[in-house]
């Protein structure tokens, strides 16, 4: 309890100095707002505001632990019933969260416990416990520099290659936001996406993830009867070139031993490896992978597998549900995340490369405070390592203390 009061006090400090400019929200009056408070669990939903000032006032006065708005626009955003709300459209949202990407460092910092049999493990938690089969699994996950870099690389790919190049969105309609915890959100505010239904969004998801690519699209351009092409040039636009570059990267990487083999049947992998030089040569002489069923003696079923694996590997690992759900609530940019005290920072496109959430999203830069840390892996914030800690009473910078308290790993004395 003491801890929550402390966090709330810190958050209030933040919101009382927050400039209105930072929470300017497109179509604010048509959105639904939702909040999770420090005092109670559960979410307050169906709130609406008629100006940014009112919203700012609310944040200052009530100071929620988490603040969300709907990606959707409604005629009556405060109506409690979805039908009465009258959906009129929604932004297109992408979410890249390290939860959905396997990174090797997870074995170092993530742990899980089965609530039914106390079985424990490290890394990504399983859906069901491997001992008792229970689905009640509690996990303890941590922010880590490496994980966040991986997420940022995915976001860069999403924005550069897909949103700007292929979909042709205007940069001014694309907002990149650090989620405040383990990833990034991208909001697209274009009239071209506003009224798209779930079917259409599903197609966008598949495009971005690299799902459902057709062998004939890549290799059968000139004839739908037989596969006659050797693949597209790496300079082709869209997926044609992307796929070819993907194959090239993949082959060069396994050749250089940087990459493990994909989940491809042994037969395909070994054929690829056998033909590696031929393929790379194909790239260097005519920019095309010298890849055809003839060159590889692949059966069409296997070629299909190869094509799909490469495409999924080179698509962006977004959380599909977030993009698909046109009524979802999403964290308001530039508000604080109640589990980390980090700011869900809007990142300018030009500054994405140099953006480091564990420095740039830190809010409470001043002061130190003594806390008792139950358990924490080594964490890295503001260019410094802290921990690992185990049952320790220690003086920490406020931002580290807030972070550990938010993660329920530390208590005030």
């Amino acid at each position, binding site marked *: 309890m003491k801890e929550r009061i402390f966090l709330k006090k810190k958050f209030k400090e933040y919101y009382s100095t927050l400039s209105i400019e930072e929470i300017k929200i497109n179509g604010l009056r048509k959105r639904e707002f939702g909040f999770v408070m420090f005092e109670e669990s559960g979410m307050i939903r169906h709130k609406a505001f008629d100006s940014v000032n009112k919203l700012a006032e609310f944040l200052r006065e009530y100071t929620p632990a988490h603040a969300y708005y709907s990606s959707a626009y409604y005629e009556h955003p405060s109506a409690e019933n979805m039908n009465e709300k009258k959906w009129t459209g929604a932004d297109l949202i992408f979410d890249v969260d390290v939860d959905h990407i396997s990174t090797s460092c997870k074995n170092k910092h993530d742990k899980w416990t089965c609530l039914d049999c106390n079985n424990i493990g490290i890394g990504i938690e399983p859906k069901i416990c491997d001992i008792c089969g229970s689905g009640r699994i509690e996990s303890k996950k941590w922010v880590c520099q490496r994980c966040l870099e991986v997420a940022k690389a995915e976001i860069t790919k999403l924005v550069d290659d897909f949103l700007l*190049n292929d979909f042709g969105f205007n940069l001014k309609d694309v907002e990149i936001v650090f989620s405040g915890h383990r990833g990034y959100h991208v909001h697209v505010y274009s009239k071209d996406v506003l009224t798209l239904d779930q*079917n259409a969004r599903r*197609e966008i998801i598949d495009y971005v993830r690299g799902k*459902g690519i*057709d062998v004939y*699209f890549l290799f059968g351009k000139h004839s739908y009867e037989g596969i006659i092409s050797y693949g597209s040039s790496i300079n082709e636009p869209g997926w044609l070139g992307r796929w070819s570059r993907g194959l090239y990267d993949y082959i060069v990487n396994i050749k250089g031993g940087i990459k493990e083999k994909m989940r491809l049947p042994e037969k395909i992998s070994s054929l690829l490896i056998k033909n590696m030089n031929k393929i790379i040569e194909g790239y260097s002489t005519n920019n095309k992978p010298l890849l055809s069923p003839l060159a590889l003696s692949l059966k069409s079923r296997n070629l299909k597998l190869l094509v799909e694996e490469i495409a999924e590997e080179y698509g962006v690992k977004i959380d599909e549900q977030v993009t698909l759900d046109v009524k979802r609530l999403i964290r308001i940019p530039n508000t604080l995340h109640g589990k980390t005290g980090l700011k869900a920072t809007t990142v300018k496109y030009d500054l994405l490369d140099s953006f480091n959430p564990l420095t740039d999203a830190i809010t409470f830069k001043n002061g130190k405070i003594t806390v008792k840390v139950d358990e924490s892996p080594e964490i890295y914030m503001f260019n410094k390592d802290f921990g690992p800690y185990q049952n320790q009473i220690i003086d920490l910078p406020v931002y580290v203390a807030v972070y550990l308290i938010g993660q329920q790993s530390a208590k005030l004395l």
Partner: protein
Amino acid sequence: MNAKNSVIDLSLFARYPFLSDAGNYVSMFNIDIDDLSKPEHNEILQEAIREIYEVVNGVSEVKHIDDYIKLMAFPVILALLSYIGSKPLINKYAIKKAKEVEEALRHENDDVLCYVASNGFNWTIKPTEKSVFAINFKDYLIASAMFNDQSWKLINQILINGLVYLSKSRLIRLMAAEVQRRIMQIELKREEPPEGIRSIVLKIREAIKKTIFERHDYLEVSGPINTEHFPPCILSIYNDLISGKSVSHIARFILTTFLVSIGLDVDSIINIFQRVADYDPDKTRYQVEHIVGKRGSRTKYATPKCENIKTMGLCLGNCGVKHPLNVYRRRIREKHERKNFFEKKVQGVL
């Protein structure tokens, strides 16, 4: 070809009566629904009725119709359809009209295609090189939702800077699909038809009752088919299908065999498949009848076992059974048991 030039090309309007220019032209005459029974508009009304009966009876005659009459009949047909209130009839008309438009578009040059797409559908479209067209991805996504085929997925298009590049023949198919989609979206009128067309509407309603397609077509999804008893694998195929998502051949096969097993007849099953965009009545009937065992080999196909469904990658849960039908039977049984249980309890209390 530009609307601003206001060259009224009646024959063009008759071929593509959904053009906004055509609509503007029609509205100049200011004919109200109740005016249709007047002798001077009788020809229009008769043409509309004729076209609807063609759909009802599944025939089509080659007949030369005056452009003006043909054009004026279009909005009348839509009005009649919405008062008749049969979704299947609307769908059938939509399919027929789309085919007609597709055929006509094949004979047009690039400029006319672009004009029809932008004036008729408000699409952003531009010709690039000869017979390659670029359309806005949003317009593409909405129209292509009508197709199930993998080759229409966005990922299998050339998408550059927000534009999807299409060959002439694919553009024409897409435009036909859009015509179909738009007609299928017309809303059913709940109120009684106005005096001027009442008797006609009632007569057509009567007529479709006698045709097979209508008998089961009022069947609602939530009606006799109780999807809450479906196992996850079947339910997911079923939901994909009725929400218009792409459903593979094998998945359709599994669903059909399952529906047969739980007692649906051919027509009811076809009715479900009608929700699919690339629905082809004849082909669907053939396939369903084949599975049911009325055609071809005359063997009735059984629903695959879980084991097989699993290898096809369509299993969605560990239901702990060997066959999807076991789940269905179990759930029905449980429901009955629960019902009996509660009834007993109530009796006990009384």
